[in-house]
């Protein structure tokens, strides 16, 4: 999802708690809204690393990208759900949500293009897309693979037969020179 934010005063990543939103100030993920990776526990969500261990100079904290200020294909773009580690001393800026996210049910290829920020197609939409879903595409790919595999096998057998007849000693001009090895 797209995001817009401004920041000035930095904090340390080790100060972040589970569920906090922040933007790293460098060197990585500088265009991304991130949060600490956390897991469910009886006491509620908690980060992978205890609070005391985060201030270890060698501590590496797992962070998850939630949103990005730049679009797909641009430098420093990372998709939502991207997981990486940053040092606990990495500078960050805490963020808060100022406008909520609005969602719509995805309806296939056109919605994917819409979500990617692509302009609408100039020509009339097709009555049926070439592939309605990835499963249909995968089935066609598998069928194509089977057909190609059978053709490759047939060609390979034909080639072996030709090669065997071509190098047979009796087919040579001087069969006595054919190696027995």
């Amino acid at each position: 999802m797209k995001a817009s934010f401004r920041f000035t005063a930095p904090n340390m990543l080790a100060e972040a708690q589970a569920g906090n939103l922040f933007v790293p100030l460098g060197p990585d993920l500088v265009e991304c809204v991130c949060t600490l990776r956390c897991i469910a526990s009886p006491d509620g969500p908690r980060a992978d690393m205890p609070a005391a261990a985060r201030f270890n100079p060698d501590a590496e904290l797992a962070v998850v990208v939630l949103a990005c200020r730049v679009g797909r294909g641009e430098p420093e773009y990372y998709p939502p759900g991207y997981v990486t580690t940053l040092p606990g001393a990495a500078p960050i800026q805490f963020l808060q949500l100022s406008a909520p996210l609005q969602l719509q049910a995805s309806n296939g290829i056109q919605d994917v293009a819409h979500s990617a920020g692509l302009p609408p197609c100039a020509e009339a939409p097709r009555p049926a897309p070439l592939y309605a879903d990835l499963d249909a595409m995968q089935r066609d790919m598998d069928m194509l693979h089977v057909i190609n595999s059978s053709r490759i096998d047939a060609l390979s057998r034909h080639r072996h037969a030709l090669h065997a007849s071509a190098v047979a000693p009796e087919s040579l001009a001087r069969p006595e020179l054919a190696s027995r090895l």
Partner: protein
Amino acid sequence: MHAHAVSAVPAPKSLKPVSSIRPGQHFLRLDSPNEVLVLVSFAGMEAADSLFLWAVVVATNHDSAGYVPGQLLKIARNTHVRPVHEVRPAAYAREQ
């Protein structure tokens, strides 16, 4: 951040197995549609697992039961989910 992070939850329109969701695509669970999820990716690739996939919460609404952004969830590959896309992106500001 968590409350009202999502202002509109769409009605069910199309269902897909979670294994066919591409990295970066947002989706909702059928049994708990108050959290927006994406699959966890490492350098653009999904985490290798034969039966399960890992998803992460990226936004919640006020009906969410204790989930926070960044929380990992383990989902069976054959679980059907509802893919969604954003009509209006969320906006963030510096915390006061």
